[in-house]
């Protein structure tokens, strides 16, 4: 019952919010619903298995049912979603939006869609939630975005829509291949497709997920969209929504197409590693804090994608916990980016500097976030990257060594950012800066505590996702 509630609460809150007149009441409503989801998601961690699944007839004539369940990976990602939304609402509480009721309604619908993606155990349902999560984002970007929002949303739409279509085609193909004409994930898992059949279907689905992650060379929508979207949306996009792609690869791609994975793993790993270096190199010369974070995120996601295809157990464990930890870290970076943009009206490094003197608390928090971004030990990101690099190393030493260069480059661009934003002499613009607001500060403190806690003692998270890792690797 828990997954149903987790979908239903934000869905109801979102629909209700459309009809609220006052902006504040819709903000309160969605925040409360997000907090309720958080409580449920926390409860789900220890709930008995019976409460974690639900089965109901949906479209019986199509062989599709409303089938949701939560394993360790789903619990973790649902928890990430449930943490991200309250953090976003609270930390951006100072931002004002035109027609706030619609804004928050769409945000809440996105939350419902995201949870749905993570818990769906039926192909058609999965597709449905995938779109439910994406469509509100189009509106959020095009209505509340920056100057170039229309062009950028168009690009985002084209990318993701093409991906979705390819995925739908492949899902339908799989559906017709199942003997009982069913969309259930278990029927897909049982399919015995020939290598030729797996080949093209695999690519159709992989491209859909690769666009979402995004992996080089399907990534160019991301920096633009992150830059132009309102920061609250960007936080969700990069904190949670890119995890959809990774999650989907683990759940809907690797187990269904074992032969194709074995055949094409090298191509994908090499592309992912190239993407890591490529994005890191571009990040070095970025002048815009949002674009820098976007490229940094692409580099990190590239590593996760590569680690999945090594099919190494330690690497897979690393991917699992890194999905959560990357979400936490990148949320923190976005909060700081938003604080700077809201207060100083610029995101350009060339116009910033000396903020450490004016805003010491923000400086400390940003430095901690930056350290997590370069995966310093005792921050959460180190554990995941250590395990993933280890997996990559087992797969191929040379590829791991080349990918390792991104560790160095990460230090270069992240410290560039820290230096240009915080250090040096202040200028006219930054002289006027004040320290971070209490809302954003407390949210960042919560994130910092999570960063340190999971960096020192990551064991609970490894245990939580162990079942999913083994399930994925067991399917041959």
């Amino acid at each position, binding site marked *: 019952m828990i997954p149903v509630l987790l979908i239903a609460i934000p869905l109801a809150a979102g629909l209700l919010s459309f009809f609220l007149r006052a902006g504040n009441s819709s903000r309160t409503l969605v925040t409360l619903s997000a907090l309720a989801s958080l409580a449920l998601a926390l409860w789900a961690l220890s709930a008995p298995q019976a409460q974690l699944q639900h089965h109901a007839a949906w479209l019986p004539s199509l062989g599709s049912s409303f089938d949701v369940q939560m394993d360790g990976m789903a619990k973790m990602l649902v928890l990430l979603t449930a943490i991200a939304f309250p953090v976003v609402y609270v930390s951006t509480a100072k931002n004002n939006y035109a027609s706030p009721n619609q804004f928050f309604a769409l945000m809440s619908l996105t939350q419902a869609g995201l949870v749905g993606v993570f818990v769906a155990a039926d192909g058609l349902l999965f597709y449905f939630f995938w779109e439910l999560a994406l469509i509100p984002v189009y509106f959020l970007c095009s209505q509340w975005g920056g100057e170039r929002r229309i062009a950028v949303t168009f*690009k985002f739409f084209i990318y993701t829509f093409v991906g979705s279509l390819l995925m739908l085609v492949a899902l339908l193909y799989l559906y017709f291949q199942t003997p009982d004409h069913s969309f259930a994930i278990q029927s897909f898992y049982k399919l015995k497709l020939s290598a030729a059949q797996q080949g093209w279907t695999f690519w159709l689905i992989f491209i859909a997920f690769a666009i979402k992650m995004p992996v080089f*060379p399907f990534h160019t929508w991301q920096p633009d969209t992150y830059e132009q979207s309102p920061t609250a949306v960007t936080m969700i996009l990069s904190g949670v929504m890119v995890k959809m792609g990774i999650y989907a690869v683990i759940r809907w791609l690797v187990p269904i197409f074992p032969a194709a994975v074995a055949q094409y793993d090298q191509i994908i790993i090499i592309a992912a590693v190239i993407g890591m270096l490529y994005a890191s190199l*571009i990040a070095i010369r970025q002048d815009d804090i949002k674009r820098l974070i976007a490229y940094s995120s692409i580099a990190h996601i590239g590593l996760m994608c590569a680690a999945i295809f090594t099919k190494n157990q330690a690497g897979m464990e690393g991917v699992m916990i890194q999905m959560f930890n990357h979400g936490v870290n990148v949320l923190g970076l976005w909060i700081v980016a938003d604080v700077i943009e809201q207060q100083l009206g610029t995101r350009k490094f060339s116009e910033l500097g000396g903020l450490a003197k004016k805003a010491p608390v923000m400086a400390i928090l940003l430095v901690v976030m930056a350290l997590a971004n370069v995966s310093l030990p005792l921050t959460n990101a180190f*554990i995941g990257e*250590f395990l993933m690099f280890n997996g990559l190393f087992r797969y191929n030493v040379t590829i791991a060594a080349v990918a390792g260069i991104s560790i160095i480059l990460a230090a270069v661009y992240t*410290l560039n950012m820290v230096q240009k934003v915080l*250090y040096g002499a202040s200028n006219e613009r930054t002289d006027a800066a004040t320290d971070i607001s209490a809302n954003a500060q407390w949210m960042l403190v919560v994130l910092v505590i999570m960063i340190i806690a999971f960096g020192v003692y990551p064991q609970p998270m490894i245990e939580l996702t162990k079942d999913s890792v083994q399930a994925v690797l067991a399917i041959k």
Partner: protein
Amino acid sequence: MNNVLHFAWLVPFFPLLGFLVNGLGRNKLSKSAVGVVGCGAVLLSFLVSVWIFLQVKGGNTYVAEYFPFINSADFKIPFAFQIDQLSSLFLLIITGIGFLIHLYSTAYMHEENSAHFARFFAYLNLFVFSMLLLVMGANYVVMFIGWEGVGLCSYLLIGYWFGNDAYNYAAKKAFVMNRIGDLGFLLAIFWMLAKLGTVSYGAVFSQAAELTTADATIIAILLFVGAMGKSAQIPLYTWLPDAMAGPTPVSALIHAATMVTAGIYMIARSNVLYSLSEVAQHLVAIVGLATALFAATIAIKQNDIKKVLAYSTVSQLGYMFLGLGVGAYTGAVFHVMTHAFFKALLFLGAGSVIHAMHHEQDIRKMGGLKKKLPITHLTFLLGCIAIAGMPPFSGFFSKDEILAAAYAHNPIYWGLGVAGAAMTAFYMFRLYATTFFGEFRGTHEQEHHVHESPSAMTIPLMVLALLSVVGGFIGIPEVFAKDAHALHHFLSPVLVTEQAHTMEHSTEYMLMGISVAIAAIAILYAINKFSKKPELGEPAGLGNVLANKWYVDELYDAVVVKPLHGLSVVLKNVVERSGIDGLVNGTGKLVHYGSRQLRLLQSGQVGAYLLAMILSIVVFMLVWFNDGTIMNLLNKIVK
């Protein structure tokens, strides 16, 4: 739990506590409270370290496991501390010298406002915490945690005065160069995990014999790459001189006494692996020797008091690696210790001079400080003698041990080593004579204000001077007294048996005599040359090349930094924008264009639509029933 050494966690705990108190209370605590917390934390952990040292000396060593850090399906990495001879010795060095430098800093940093003062002590405590993790870790991953932690603190402290962009660049450079080394370290860890399935010291060393020579060589070299970064060896040394941007106590603690010796600690710790690979040993020795000479040549022509000491540190670290490379592990660790004494002393002495001169660092603008700073002068002189390797000061014993081992290995190593030692003696006394002898060359105002530093600064100087003088006696070579090498006996359980000294005693006396004589000549020459007529002009010819540090920074800039930035710009502006984005936007434009053409079909003439509809129905039916069905039907109707 039964072992009393289980409480070893107290050692890093106190500095961590100090970091949290000072860091979180930076706006509330007074300066004196900050000083008490900062120094007290390190003092407490020093006391615990002494207790641990006595335990270890009594034969009690222990591996304390606290909690599983990474328990993957493939391997288990516990968070564990290893208390043995090597780590307990380093604990003493770190906390002991750390405490003295903390004490010194309370006076040196007194001009800072209280929030920044607290920030400084918080960073210093965090550094001590990380350094302790580094040496106490019972496996390579815990060592790596400390390894990166000290790198972070180094970054934060070099850029402590963050208003100055040059300092920030220096800080970033230090971090990035260290990261290059760290990648090597990380790959070494992965290699160990892949081949041995463990990274715990005990398990790795006991299974090391199973490794093939190739694997042992690769692991050893990768570890050495890490050490190159952290301990500033060729080619990754250029960050250390720039790191002098940090406050002087930081230079003393991090960039001379402790952090930069982490690489030595790592290789000494992994001596079992290195003894399996001759290639790696040779590499270590050659890189160490090359760095020792190269840095010494640069130090000769530097005019910044801290830069001279920085290059001297790089050079001395080179000696330590030479020692490691020729198998003199005890000698290297011994030199770490004595070097920590006299180099910390020299840096703090330099700090005292800089403090007195109101942040003037150029020795050409000093001179004649002998009378004005008597304590600083005397302690600095003792430090210089120690580093020059004059008997019976501490530097003599440790350096001699390394050089003797180098001779046994290869006489050419010894010859080059002695040349380096002579240069060391020369540049140190050039520095000493230019600073303390001759006429005062600063401004009138400076001359008026020059004063001896407060006792919080001079007491550490005196303690360190004493240690520099007598510190060598724990490692008296066999040639003087049989079985007098206390350090060797103490460390023997954790280090592999070194090659026995097959040298004749007479040879050894001769070697010592030669090196001491050459160094003494260099000292006398330098004092004679610079006490009356210091070099004040711009150097020319080779001197200019040396003063510009062989143009290595420029070379790196041209070969690595510029191309990287260029590549970045090309990728950003050309590949990303025109290439990939062009493809995507091109698709979009194509659709746009196509739809604009197709739009013309929508004329708005309903008649045209209807005609199109009906024609298409007819065509459709003709195609669909192209097997003659329609004709049959019509025939049927007509009949």
